[in-house]
């Protein structure tokens, strides 16, 4: 690696070295508690899948260039040059970690391995060796924000074509079945850019007589998946600008954990509230704005907490309230809530199909956890989790149905 490239990468590293990050990098005692917390290591017990190792590949570069001992005596201790081998290790560490943060819950110092991986990702982006597909998707999302007028009419027509399916689920009267661009709407719903995410939610919000508008933009933030802070903000800004233009009071994020994390925690204070769709559905049920038929869904149901929505986002009780309103037959996974194991599909791994076999192997602990419940229906709340658990179902022959919580409510609506 030439000097200019190395200096560029070290400048990027330096940009992340605030006080919390220095603490994370300085205080690890290698006690190993994080290893037993990690779903990947529980499924594939190899050292390279422990959180402490994932952090260590970053920490050794830190020791080499940002600690006095490493600068004076680079041959001493475990400091490491930033070179092609180091970049390869960083890639393996950062993009096979889903960023679930379960390790952080067990670490006595609260070391945030996900935040440390953000350094690894930034260096890989600086080296142009990040997963190409994630950057390509992030660029396409940003482009969509810049050139919305070019696609607006055909998108409106595409959405119009979904209306029959919305009406089939909820037959009530509504002026606009899937409203778009409604100035003064109470709520802006940000879906994934697909029928699977739009139709069930539209049925529910129409049933609740909500004054809502569908966003022109998809919720998912590929800038966050790839680990590029600038692209993350540009992608989020499209939705923020739309929400401000329409003067909505609430931005509601669909079943996408990363999108919820970004909009709820990473974009600063905005003139609207940010909610997850599960919080909104729980509110509709509590206020009796929607009616559902209990036990229309047959069989024992369990719930998988998506990491970004449960552990990170704190939306833990609402999904349970919803499921208990729909079924008398609910069982918790063990552990669950903030302590739940990641399914293995986060961090863009399920969305892009990269690391396919490893992803399924790493999901073994989740498959075992589901099997132990005896449930026939697994409900979840994030499309990465849905995709991953469906694949785990096929691979580990779990014999379950996997449903998104929004589909579940839409399927049980009473007209």
């Amino acid at each position, binding site marked *: 690696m030439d000097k200019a490239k190395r200096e560029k990468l070290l400048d990027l590293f330096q940009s992340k070295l605030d006080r919390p990050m220095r603490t994370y990098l300085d205080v690890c005692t290698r006690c190993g508690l994080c290893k037993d917390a990690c779903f990947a290591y529980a499924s594939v017990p190899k050292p390279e899948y422990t959180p402490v190792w994932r952090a260590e590949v970053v920490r050794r570069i830190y020791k080499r260039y940002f600690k006095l001992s490493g600068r004076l005596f680079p041959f001493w201790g475990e400091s490491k040059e930033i070179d092609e081998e180091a970049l390869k290790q960083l890639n393996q560490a950062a993009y096979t970690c889903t960023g679930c943060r379960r390790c952080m819950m067990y670490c006595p110092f609260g070391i945030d391995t996900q935040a440390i991986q953000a350094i690894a990702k930034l260096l890989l982006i600086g080296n142009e060796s990040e997963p190409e597909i994630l950057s*390509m998707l992030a660029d*396409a999302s940003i482009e969509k924000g810049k050139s919305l007028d*070019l696609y607006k009419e055909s998108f409106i*027509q595409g959405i119009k074509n979904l209306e029959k399916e919305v009406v089939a689920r909820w037959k009530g009267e509504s002026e606009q079945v899937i409203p778009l661009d409604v100035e003064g709407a109470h709520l802006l719903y940000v879906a*994934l*850019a697909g029928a699977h995410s739009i139709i069930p939610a539209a049925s529910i919000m129409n049933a609740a007589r909500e004054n809502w508008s569908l966003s022109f933009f998809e919720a*998912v933030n*590929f800038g966050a998946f790839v680990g590029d802070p600038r692209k993350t903000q540009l992608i989020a800004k499209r939705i923020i600008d739309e929400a401000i233009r329409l003067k909505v009071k609430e931005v509601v994020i669909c079943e996408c954990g990363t999108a919820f994390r970004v909009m709820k925690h990473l974009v600063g204070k905005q003139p609207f509230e940010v909610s997850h769709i599960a919080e909104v559905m729980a509110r509709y049920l509590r206020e009796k704005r929607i009616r559902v038929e209990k036990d229309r869904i047959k069989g024992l149901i369990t719930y998988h907490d998506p990491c970004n929505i449960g552990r990170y986002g704190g939306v833990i009780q609402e999904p349970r309230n919803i499921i208990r309103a729909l079924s008398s037959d609910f069982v918790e996974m063990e552990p669950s809530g903030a302590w739940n194991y990641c399914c293995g599909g986060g961090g863009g791994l399920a*969305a892009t199909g990269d690391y396919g076999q490893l992803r399924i192997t790493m999901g073994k602990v989740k498959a075992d956890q589901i099997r132990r419940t005896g449930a026939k229906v697994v409900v979840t709340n994030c499309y990465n989790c849905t995709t991953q658990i469906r694949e785990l179902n096929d691979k580990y022959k779990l014999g379950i149905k996997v449903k998104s919580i929004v589909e579940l409510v839409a399927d049980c609506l009473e007209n």
Partner: protein
Amino acid sequence: MSEEIKADKTMDLKGLPCPQPVIKVSKGIKEIQVGQVLQAVTTDPGALSDFPAWARTSGNEILKTDQGGGLITFWIKRLK
């Protein structure tokens, strides 16, 4: 209408949710030569904005888009 553009490769992406169609197309376009045309058939309405945005950023050209019968069909020319 569709007979007007000859496709060198066709991808059936029906039923795949976002973002799979655009991911598969970005891989599929590398399997044809520059100047050739890829036809992609999807049911995902998100593709109506995803595909043109992807084409602009990846330097490819959408020659035509057709909606009908619940299907959305794109003809995409590889430019580089």
